[in-house]
């Protein structure tokens, strides 16, 4: 009888513990679900694309104490895109850890504007130079209406930037980023010049060549028809925003409120 009562008490305790766990999950999980990294406020992406982007953003942020946000809104009216993004960041309590570290790319589809802002540790990890590189790759996709492609590019570049910072202890900046262009410049151009000179020298060694023309034996061409008739005009427009002058010093510039990033633009 005593044993039976003891078993009943144990069962009740277990049920109460499970119920407490369940309540905790019910209270905590909605909070976690309410802080997505890809914040599609206008329903731009379908479910599959959204899930894919969200997982990529979580993977990029993971372990770096710096959240990677991609914010999509329709119209920001007359508001400055940078002010809009900063207000959104603050009002929604975004950022990782006590320092609220993060990077946010704002895409205002209806207003055709964009901006990148950084805060906390994000200011250090993402230099002005790197943000300009990222926007150079992202904005052409926005111009083409490739919203998902733009988001993927942003998340991939942010991921690489945070990994680089974690591995090297310094951010990607103007003075340490060799990159493909830098390598091409430093190695490719000298190699091309040397190859060109060697080719000239090599041709001096091989002078026996069959002729393909007979210029020496033709005094001149007597033209009897010369007609040039205008037919039509075509026009092409290519998106190519003027480049802002880079600051040669590198690093990250910040506002008085601690936010870094770009001043944004239109696409």
């Amino acid at each position: 009888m005593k044993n039976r009562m003891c078993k009943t008490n144990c069962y009740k305790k277990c049920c109460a513990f499970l119920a407490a766990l369940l309540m905790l999950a019910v209270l905590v999980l909605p909070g976690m679900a309410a802080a997505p990294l890809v914040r599609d406020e206008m329903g731009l992406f379908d479910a599959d694309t959204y899930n894919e982007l969200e997982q990529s953003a979580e993977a990029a942020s993971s372990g770096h104490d710096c959240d990677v946000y991609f914010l999509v809104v329709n119209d920001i009216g007359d508001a400055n895109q940078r002010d809009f993004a900063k207000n959104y960041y603050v009002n929604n309590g975004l950022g990782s850890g006590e320092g609220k570290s993060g990077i946010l790319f704002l895409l205002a589809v209806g207003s055709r504007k964009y901006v990148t802002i950084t805060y906390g540790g994000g200011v250090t990890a993402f230099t002005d130079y790197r943000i300009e590189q990222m926007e150079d790759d992202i904005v052409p996709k926005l111009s083409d209406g490739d919203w998902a492609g733009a988001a993927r590019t942003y998340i991939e570049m942010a991921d690489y930037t945070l990994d680089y910072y974690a591995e090297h202890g310094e951010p990607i900046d103007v003075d340490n980023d060799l990159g493909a262009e830098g390598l091409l410049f430093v190695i490719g151009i000298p190699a091309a010049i040397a190859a060109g000179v060697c080719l000239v020298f090599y041709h001096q060694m091989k002078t026996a060549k069959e002729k393909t023309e007979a210029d020496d034996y033709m005094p001149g061409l007597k033209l009897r028809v010369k007609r040039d008739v205008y037919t039509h005009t075509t026009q092409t427009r290519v998106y190519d925003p003027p480049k802002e002058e880079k600051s040669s010093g590198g690093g990250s510039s910040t506002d008085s409120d601690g936010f870094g990033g770009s001043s944004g633009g239109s696409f």
Partner: protein
Amino acid sequence: MPNETTNYQCPACTGPLRFDSATGKLVCDYCGSTYEVKEVEALYADKQKASDTAARQRPQGPVWGEEEAAGLTSRTCSSCGAELVCDGTTAATTCPYCGNPTVLGGQLSGKLKPEYIIPFKLDRKAAVQNLNKYYKGKKFLPKAFKEQNHVEEIQGVYVPFWLYDATADARGAYEGEVTESHREGNYVVTNTQHYNVARAGEADFIKVPVDGSSKMPDAHMDAIEPFDYSAIQPFSTAYLPGFLADRYDEDEEKCLPRATRRMENTTRAALRETIDGYSEVHTKAENINIDIRKAHYALLPVWMLHTRWNDKDFLFAMNGQTGKLIGDLPVDPKRVAAWFAGISLPLMVILALFLYG
């Protein structure tokens, strides 16, 4: 085909005459007499006939088998009596036994007789000097090549050429574009004006040369062009003594495609050069017709120099009139690597310091 070799002999001392490229006269090295070409030709006409007759009457010696004889010609030096065996396309040669310059009149007569000849203007010494000069400034030439190789064989050769006179008729239709770009905000706007362009014309080609000897490398013969046709002369065997002369073994029909291709390319380029003022020109249609008016058979002067190094043969050709010398030289891979590294590495260091230093 006659197989008698005939000498031009000095009317004064009967010594061998040779053609002096510097003076354009026939010279006797024994008594120092000099003769105009036409003068000796006139004196020699009867002797040539007698020599041909003697050759026909000569008893047969040992004979070549049919297969062996197929590509060979037997000739006799009238000076020392040596029998010269050459391949069938060689028309004049120097007797290897007595050194006499000899001429086989019959080989270049009749159907095979050239219409023109450009006499040699530069001698053997100039050819060797030009070859040594040619080596200078060649960065990839192995050092040992200059030191170890020497000219093994040098021959002045009258190379058979076909010289084509032709008229080219050319018509072309093109699309011309004039492009202008300007900036409108974040966009670069490009306006392109399109034009229909038509051109037609004709061009005369005068004596486009193509060598008619399969033994001569085409690349070598092309590369020593051009010849100065102002010095061209009606053919005479009097220019041949002292030089080897080939007869053609590729006729004017066989050589014609090479000449036609060259004339087409030149005409096409000339037609396109008349189209200007456009940023881009696209060809819609082109039609070029080459009408060959005449093909002249001519002998042109070439010094052939042969060297051997590291068991490889190197052949050089020099225009016997202008002195232009060409030929492929050996390349030292170590020198290529050294030059490549010597240029590229310092540049890489300088650029790296400039960008990231």
